């Protein structure tokens, strides 16, 4: 880790200005991923702009019934927040399925979205990785890739995004609010992360210097039955082999709303639009769920050693949909 400068920002504006003023700057939130990667030599900031104490640590209901979660809200506080738990169960469950109590106490909402892949080639600076060092190659594609992507990967990168929370946000139609030199904007959570394509070095749609200020959960999915399920190698404190977040509303036996997103299958939380479209207006039965999920996963292109992810993802999605269906009936 090279020596670096440190600036503590008192406001969002000050933070973005400090970032712009210091080439090689990085924002510091909870640090749980950034400090880890700095120790590995993967991240080499010249300056850290500390945004952990910005007044972005509030969870508040907006007049339209949506819920704004400040980017500095800690994962454990968000998971425990009654409005998150009661209105967006999948979000709370996803947060609690991730990491450990200690890490959730430190990790922030914004930082969670910006965490980097767990690909072992990305983490090892002595190996090629197009994400870490564009053009250097990909060690995982023909290497050890049991944990890697089955959907949306490219010749250049087969990494997955490790967040649990982001999967729930994608399914819940959340939006990510950003602030940068060009002012404030927001993007759908499901479109915030990118597919690798030719530029796996870019994880997200965030622009240089932009800061995540909050995440907004819409009124539309508030209170809808939702759930998160994660499969992993050990019972706790492990990244997902596959996960799914589901939001479901059933009206008169017919699916009226379906939000489905997969984790650990792709370079971003994978919003299963094809499956959702197939379900809408159709029966809420296990068969229908299975057909819809299969339709989505037909696009999967497993690597040599990760074909298991397809049936795994299918099973957990059908299971969660089926379990939610009775409660989802209105």
């Amino acid at each position, binding site marked *: 880790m090279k020596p670096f400068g440190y600036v503590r920002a008192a406001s969002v504006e000050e933070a973005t200005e400090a970032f712009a003023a210091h080439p090689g700057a990085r924002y510091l939130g909870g640090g749980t991923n950034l400090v880890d990667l700095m120790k590995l030599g993967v991240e080499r900031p010249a300056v850290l702009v500390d945004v952990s104490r910005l007044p972005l640590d509030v969870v508040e209901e907006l007049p339209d019934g949506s819920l704004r979660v400040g980017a500095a809200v800690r994962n454990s506080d968000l998971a425990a927040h009654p409005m998150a738990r009661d209105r967006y169960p999948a979000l709370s469950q996803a947060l609690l399925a991730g990491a450990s109590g200690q890490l959730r106490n430190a990790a922030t909402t914004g930082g969670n979205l910006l965490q980097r892949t767990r690909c072992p080639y990305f983490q090892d600076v002595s190996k090629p990785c197009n994400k870490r060092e564009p053009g250097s190659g990909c060690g995982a594609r023909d290497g050890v890739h049991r944990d890697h992507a089955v959907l949306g990967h490219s010749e250049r990168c087969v990494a997955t995004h490790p967040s649990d929370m982001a999967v729930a946000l994608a399914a819940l139609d959340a939006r990510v609010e950003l602030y940068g030199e060009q002012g404030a904007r927001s993007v759908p959570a499901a479109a915030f992360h990118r597919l690798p394509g030719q530029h796996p070095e870019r994880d997200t749609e965030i622009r240089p210097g932009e800061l995540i200020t909050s995440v907004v959960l819409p009124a539309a999915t508030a209170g809808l039955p939702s759930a998160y399920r994660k499969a992993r190698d*050990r019972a*706790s404190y492990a990244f997902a082999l596959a996960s799914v977040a589901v939001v479901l509303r059933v009206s008169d036996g017919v699916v009226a709303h379906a939000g489905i997103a997969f984790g650990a299958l792709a370079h971003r939380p994978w919003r299963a639009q094809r499956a959702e479209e197939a379900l809408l207006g159709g029966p809420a039965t296990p068969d229908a769920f299975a057909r819809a999920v299969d339709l989505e996963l037909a696009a999967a292109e497993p690597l040599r050693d*990760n074909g298991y992810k397809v049936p*795994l993802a299918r099973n957990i999605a059908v299971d969660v949909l089926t379990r939610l269906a009775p409660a989802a009936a209105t």
Partner: protein
Amino acid sequence: MAGTGTALGAPAERREGQLKVTGGARYAAEHALPGRAQAWPVPATVARGRVTAVDATAALRLPGVLAVLTHENAPRITEPEDPILGVLQNPAVPHRGWFVALVVAESLEAARAAAAAVRVEYAAEDHDVTLTADHPEAYEPESVNGEHPTRREHGRRASDSPAARVNVAYEVPPLHNHPMEPHASTAHWDQGHLTVYSSSQGGTTVRETLAALFGIPEERITVVADHVGGGFGSKGTPRPDVVLAAMAALTTGRPVTVSFPRRFLPAVVGHRAPTLHRVRLGADADGRLTSLTHEVTTHTSRIKEFVEQAAVPARVMYDAAHSLTVHRVARLDVPTPSWMRAPGEAPGMYALESAMDELAAELGMDPVELRIVNEPEREPDSGKPFSSRHLVDCLREGARRFDWSRRDPRPRSRAEGPLLIGTGVASATYPVLVSPSTARAQALPDGTFVVRVNATDIGTGARTVLAQVAADALEVPLDRVRTEVGSSDLPSAPLAGGSSGTASWGWAVHVACRELVARLAAHAGPLPAEGIDAHADTSGRADADSPFARHAFGAHFAEVGVDTVTGEVRVRRLLGVYAAGRILNARTARSQFVGAMTMGLGMALTEGSTMDAAFGDFTECDLASYHVPAHADVPSIEAHWLDETDTHLNPMGSKGIGEIGIVGTAAAIGNAVHHATGVRFRTLPLTPDKVLGGLAG
């Protein structure tokens, strides 16, 4: 005299417990000697080749950097007996992760930054790190770990075909010890005397080794291993940290700590080598084995032949008209494997006891009964009588406690919603090992006693149990005895390993204490101020050949739930019953049994490492990717033992207990998974990727 003769077996509280729960116990890297510097190693990034250039210019220019040691400038040491200690002596790179430089700096941050700034160039050569059962370079070594013969064959192959037969292959991946305290040493030279605080399972060997490497008499070396944060075999022999720390301290004239970053451990502290097993069993209609073949193929490194003796336990367990056990090893460009808790027995008994379960299924026989039917009268390989063997009692007692009789033997016969529930059993065995040790016992005028022995407490409770041994031998209450362990200035003693520590040290402590009792009896009048002491050396006794085959035995029972949605397997219940001689401390013994069973649970379900064919290193090199079991994986675990009396062991009548808990646990869990699902999984660990595929058929 109150409390005499009753200390052994009592659940005495750990003597260092208070220090450990208050943060006061200091480990090797925590001795902040004045002016102490920190070091950071630089691992090789090629799997085979040699270093052609090291450019430390940029590293040395960084603030706080004191030195960069390389093969060009590091102190020369005598060629070590253990090649893994020959660090920074020549440009050869025998495997990826081998240390090619060491940075010494004022702070951890400066050392880490400078290590990243050292530029190393290599002439890389083609490498081969991939083990296969038919690897063209695999050979039968002269002997395997533990000095066992590579091949043993008894009887003749039967010409008629058996009533039931099993011919299967099992695979155990590379496994990592990963003690919670990374390997670390703090070294300091003061007027020609070398003091090292080293995270080691045996300070006596560390001292001998350093004396040989640095060419100084042992009297000028002190090795302290006061508290050691686990080892599980990986600290059983000196590791490069202690050599590098001594070199760096010599070079800089400062005390230096070398504490290995966690990610570097898999390459330099040994690992359990992968083992590929072929097991063939034949049995008559009554279940009696007619033939038993266990063939093991494993790997070792280019610089050292270490052969995991995984076919050896078959020589102890079962009799058959024809038996063959053989090992083959391939030298590959891999890190050097070494001891990991129950080397040989842990992977070997996974394969053998899984195959026995398959045989029971073939025969339609209860797997407990099959084992009882095959109980030998003498040790099959040596023909020696057993000093004691209560495996059948362990199986029966375990079956009773586990409620085995209520088990529906049909596979896939029990479900709870999406969970398939199954139970399994496996036997365990571990040899009784013991080594000569010295010890000193001292009686003080105030009526207290001090026992001194360079034992190492790696978490077993050595201080406590040795006090118990002493109290009984001295016929005094436990609280009158103090123990001093963990320094090479104390009477020399063998390592804490091979489940032999307590037996070895305890024997010497016992003899010293009895001798002291005799001296005290002969002494008239008050004791002199310095007290009276007695010394013991068990050479010639502890290592004498025994006419008996001496082993501990045990039985493991497991219940698992297999999630048919995800393929996730979770243990619901684990129960072990052991016959391991006299249990010397019920409290710490239970912790050791339960702990080893937990590691067996990990071996079965969560732990596994992958040798990356392209890069030649272990992919799962940190604790986020190499999954040792977490709290949530471990339900209540029961450990029980029989009161076993064996007079052919040592004065305490004890067998080792540190390792047997892992032996057979993975088989019991795997057998339970078969019972739950009806599917045989023969490659560990049983992670969802494998299990889900198997469930789908």
